[in-house]
């Protein structure tokens, strides 16, 4: 399995990378929305973990742009990973096209369950 981790904070990327490594998942990292889109150009990912607050292009815009693509990656399962709290985060993210939302601090179970549900929702299980 190959997962794209998008977060401007290297520590957060490391946490996600290490957690996924325990499940034998190959990971690629991006620092902002722009890099994420480029990565999707060059690779075939099974899931994208997307942070919300990033410089230059934030998670919300990146999600909308991914869904607007015309290639197969337009359909990639997207899990938003954010430290922002509150019910409105879920609605905003899902309305932008994300599949699931998990909150930091991350727990491995919550992260994996979200990835699982997102993958199934997009028919990629």
């Amino acid at each position, binding site marked *: 399995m190959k997962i794209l981790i998008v977060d401007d904070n290297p520590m*957060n990327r490391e*946490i996600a990378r290490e957690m996924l490594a325990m499940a034998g998942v190959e990971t690629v990292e991006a620092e902002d929305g722009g890099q994420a889109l480029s990565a999707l150009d060059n690779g075939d990912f099974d899931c994208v973990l997307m942070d919300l607050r990033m410089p230059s292009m934030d998670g919300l815009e990146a999600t909308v742009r991914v869904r607007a693509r015309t290639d197969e990656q337009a359909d990639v399962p997207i899990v938003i990973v954010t*430290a922002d709290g509150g019910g409105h985060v879920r609605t*905003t993210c899902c309305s932008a096209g994300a599949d699931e939302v998990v909150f*930091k*601090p*991350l727990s491995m179970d919550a992260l*994996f369950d979200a990835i699982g549900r997102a993958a*199934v929702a997009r028919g990629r*299980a």
Partner: protein
Amino acid sequence: MGPVMRPALRRAALSISAVLIVAAPAATFAAEFAEAESSTAAPEDAFEARIQAAKTEMMSDPQGALSEADGALALAGPGAAGDVRSATASWLRAEALTRMNRPSEALPVAEAALETARTRKPGSKLHGDLLMTVSTLRGVQGHAQEALAGFHQAHDIFRKLGEARSQAKALQSIGSIYNDARDFQRTLKYYDEAAAVYAGDPVMSLSAHNNRANALKEMGRYEEAEARYKLALADARKIDSPLLIVRILTNIASAQYLKGDLDLAERTARQALALAQGPAQEWRPYIWGVLAQIALKRGDPGRAEQYLRRTFQGQDLNRTTLMFRDFHLVARDVYEALGEPAMALAHLKAFVRLDDEARDASASVNSALMAARFDYNNQRLQISELKAERLAKDVQLSKTRQQFAVGAVAALALMLAIVLWAYFSVRRNRNAVRKVNAELTTTNVALERALAARSQLLATTSHEIRTPLNGILGMTEILLRDRALTDDVRNKLQVVKSSGVTLQALVDDILDVAKIETGEIKVWKAETDLRALLGEVGDLWSEVAREKGVAFNVELAECPATAITDARRLRQIVFNLVSNAVKFTDAGAIVVRASTAVAADGPRLRIAVVDTGPGVPESEQERVFEAFHQVDGQTTRKHGGTGLGLAICRDLARALGGVVTLESRVGEGATFTVDVPLEQPETVPAGAVAVGSADAAPVVLDILLVEPNPLTVSLIKAAFGDDARRLERVDSVAAAAETLAARPFDAVVAGPGAGADPVEWTALAEVRPETVFVRVADGEAAGAPFDHTLARGAVKTLPAMLRAEREQGTPRTRSTPASGRATFDSSVVSEAS
């Protein structure tokens, strides 16, 4: 003789709802002219004439008022008196600029004038008025704490001067800040107080009705809001201001739309549109916004788009103000429906920007207010005693004042005489009142300082603390999953994890206090594994308890397996209760016991946390649930904590529909019990479906998943979705054997990582032969006796397949292994169901 009274309006750019208006009368200048302390005696004075003119024109023609004020400024003259006159003129310039929607120019003017007033004429009405102006502008900028402090100061000045109307205005302004923080109880309280202080004229009455209606609308009480708006409308008609009438009609239309009565809402909106001519036409964009909402709700995005184009005409989407927030969301939906993703995205971004700003503002206002309550508790008694004294005298003053104000409107000469008389009458009471007021002021200033200091701390909490917490908890979890750890290292890591989780809980609790106070807590119910939840909380604390020498047990014998509830909130409650128990118990045992009970209103879930700590005296048992209360200061210093935990527990339990109760005696420990309604998912007992019955209930399956890779587990779990009633997971075939011996399952699913040693699997199959054995494999799997082999992507077909098999009573045959082992045939195995 007296200038015509016209209403004035203040835009509340900080309001949450797009069509929310706070029509607080920032100045009814005619009346103020009557009550104001005159800076010069002779009305022929050129300066004074300009000032009067500016005041008169302020409501109807702010542009004109601005030039009058500019002219007055030029005539201010030298010296100290000149400085004060300049300040007065500058105040009017700032008010005019504000009404012309140029707040960034208005603010420096007002601030400079405030400085003059503060130094030259502290405690004067001019000082108070300038505080009001500056605070309003600061509020518009988003500096809620400073605005609040300023309004309080202005309020105190007006109260000392006996300026009841201005005092009421200040109270209304404070109320609007609480409105922005979505603390509607306090909002209404301050508006009520304002009405109690001064109920003089239609403008105040209109403002009071309108603001109450706004708060009611935010609380979802649309019928009541509509009724209140209509009262405000009656006042607006009395005052005969087209712009005010149009604004309130728009509010009414919005409330009707929210109520769901689209026809009525559209009629009202069109009524407003018809009246929105001349000075009132600046409100048309917002009316079109409401019409767009209605059109979209009716399923006509094309028409909605036409309205929205007018709403947003000339607006830079990156710079729209808060009034447009909800309209951006409508626009997003409209453009999405019309297939214009670029526009939809632009509006979504604008919505998010404004929503974030509003929430940040709300959060920072909340933290400011919460900070005030931190210190406020300690000073509450002192203040209330002082207040009682002061209030008695104030009522006296205020009554006298009111009578005079009514007379003052009638005739100028009579006004002057009455004002003089009032002045001398006030002086008699003044000395007694002064002392009490002085003490109150000191307290209030201290409050304001604490406000400012604490609010900074709390405002940055959420995002900033959660990020390093992600590092702590994330890495600790990763480390704990290393099987090679020694028990010693594992235990130590568990302590680190407990501390991290406690910190997270503390952060959540602090922010939840604000949310609970403003009614923002949302409960999200889903099927929850109660045993796992309680087990997790237990795991977190058992090590810490053990280190203290306290036994720790979680008793789940009577605990239902699943319930429909908000897992996060329930965990928070139990976590807080256990945290308290561990904190206060130094010896003995702590037990977490889950059970069910049947009460008059249905089944209940009860989780009791029993400890052998010092207990809580009966006199304190109600008060322990109060926010920030601790049984005694000593314990806090020894044990730490904010005193928030139990208050949160009770509020959260209430949100879940239940209560938290306490049973305790001093020296005999304490038992805290969470008691919530028990909702259980609808279950079908295993094997209950009769073969071939026409009304068969959908089969839900019990699955045993054998797979070490946690992500694969999640994927398979998600693929089963609702079809799996119970899904247990083990790491290896050996562990599966134990589990399968203990409990029956419909199917055992072997993931790709489970290994496929035919010997092991054959042995497992013998444990419970009627179970279906499925292998999920990425490639060819030779050997073991599986009933089915599926590729990963086909796991979703499994539930249907299993259901079909059960219904048809397909005999169990297993594929012939390539190695030539014996095949199983169901006729050989006795069915032991």
